[in-house]
């Protein structure tokens, strides 16, 4: 595994075994879970496409922070999204989608929900199955990651990482990536944020919406500022996870998708040749 024999013009770096089986399996399970959770979650959101702050939903008073609806205008129905009292015309995507002849009414368009039509019951079946799978995967990953040292060794930022932070930001900004054994500091921050903040927050805000869990763990809803606030945070955290996904995939594409995908499928990752092609020294 030292050198590829069909090597091209440039010298190739070493292939190293970078991702353990635990990391790879849990990574893809999360990918599947988050895909289904997102699309079934938007189906559930569409049943009442308004978000509030506090314990309850204001019908006789206004505590909405986000509202997606459709309004009638002389030129036909228009989709309207209202955020903190400011309205935006979102026809085509939110509120009203589809064609002028066949407009689709609802929060998010059918292309973004499972099932494509309004079906809250099925959305809930899909959502709760993958919610359990996500939690189980997180727990397996946490145990494995603590026992095999992955979390401490690969994910925890070190003092050296922090001092490298400005350089790392500059390199990312120039789309220049180093391929070594360890993650760079921005990767560590991003993965820790997702695994230790966003996903647990998603689970906790999801549980806080459960009238059963509110009786079992009364502190949870107090901590989150009420059931409707929990629902709003659940939605906001979803948008942050989608943002992470977009950046994550963009980074994989920019850093060398075949190598990155190979390492997440087989575990083997090709590092930069020593010294680096750009004259850099591997950390």
């Amino acid at each position, binding site marked *: 595994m030292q050198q590829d024999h069909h090597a091209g013009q440039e010298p190739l770096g070493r292939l190293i075994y970078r991702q353990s089986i635990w990391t790879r399996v849990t990574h893809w399970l999360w990918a599947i879970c988050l*895909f289904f959770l997102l*699309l079934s979650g938007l189906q*559930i*959101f569409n*049943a*009442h496409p*308004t978000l*509030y702050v506090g*314990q*309850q*939903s*204001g*019908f*006789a*008073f206004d505590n909405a922070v986000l509202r997606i609806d459709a309004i009638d205008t002389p030129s036909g129905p228009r989709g309207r999204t209202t955020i903190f009292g400011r309205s935006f015309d979102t026809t085509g995507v939110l509120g009203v989608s589809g064609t002028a002849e066949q407009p689709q009414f609802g929060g998010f368009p*059918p*292309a*973004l*929900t*499972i*099932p*494509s*039509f309004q*079906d*809250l*019951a*099925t959305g*809930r*079946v*899909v959502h*709760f*199955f993958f*919610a*359990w799978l996500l939690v189980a995967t997180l727990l397996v990953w946490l145990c494995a990651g603590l026992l095999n040292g992955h979390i401490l060794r690969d994910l925890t930022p070190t003092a050296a990482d922090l001092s490298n932070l400005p350089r790392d930001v500059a390199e990312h900004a120039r*789309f220049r990536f180093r391929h070594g054994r360890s993650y760079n500091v921005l990767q560590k921050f991003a993965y820790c944020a997702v695994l230790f903040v966003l996903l647990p927050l998603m689970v906790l805000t999801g*549980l806080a*919406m*459960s*009238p*059963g*869990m*509110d*009786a*079992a*763990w*009364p502190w949870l*809803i107090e901590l989150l500022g009420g*059931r*409707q606030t929990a*629902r709003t945070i659940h939605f906001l955290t979803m948008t942050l996870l989608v943002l992470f996904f977009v950046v994550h*995939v*963009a980074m994989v*594409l*920019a850093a060398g*998708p075949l190598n990155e995908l190979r390492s997440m499928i087989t575990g083997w990752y090709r590092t930069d040749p020593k010294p680096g092609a750009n004259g850099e020294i591997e950390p």
Partner: protein
Amino acid sequence: MSKLVYGRRRLFGIGTAGLSSLVLTGCNQFDFLDESGDRVRAFLAKANDVTYFAQRLLLGRDALAREYSETEIRQGQRPNGSTDPEAEDYVALKAKDFVDFRLTVTGLVERPRDYSLAELRNMPSRTQITRHDCVEGWSCIAKWTGTPLSIVLDEARLKPAARYLVFHCYDSLDAGLTGPIRYYESCDLIDARHPQTILAYGLNNQPLPVANGAPIRVRIERALGYKQPKYVHTVEAVDSFARFGRGKGGFWEDLGYDWYAGI
């Protein structure tokens, strides 16, 4: 560097196209899941059993739903589902202000009997300000007054074979081949005997309005809104709810919603 830029652009293009096709097919690739007999759906729905067992484990029998203060009642209780049943028997009762109404307790009980509204109002009562969580996602806080269901069950004496209560209602939300399908619901005996489970006849210090389920609505406070049947006329103790409707334990359950409804 230029090679890198080219590669990056091209790959961005491929990636974007791939992702958007994945998302666009997300729309109807999974539509088969709505069919009630689908095996994949049945498998996924087992997660609801896990939720039921997990919550029963965490909840304990008597953990109370959060109760709120008077100041948190900021609006009337939002009516949803049926708001004015059209069934003839119900319309006749409503015309006489429910003086002829009887709540029947029957099924697997030692002493079946029925109660007039006045009898229920003269029994010990419980008042609670709780949050109603609709399965759609909204919540509304209101004050409910009624007779604890456990008192009624103690009087009727459940037979050992009884495992569930089925609540039969006057309203119908849908029509079947043989006429309107009446709303019904069911719960296990833990929810039935929970201290906050009441046969509610009062809402926000007033008699329960027709839009909210007059004369009697069951409150099961640790469950979602569809578990709070309105216009209830019969409480039936059963060993299984397989023989009612499509056998899933309730009107919405028959349409694919989960029976436990604790999340």
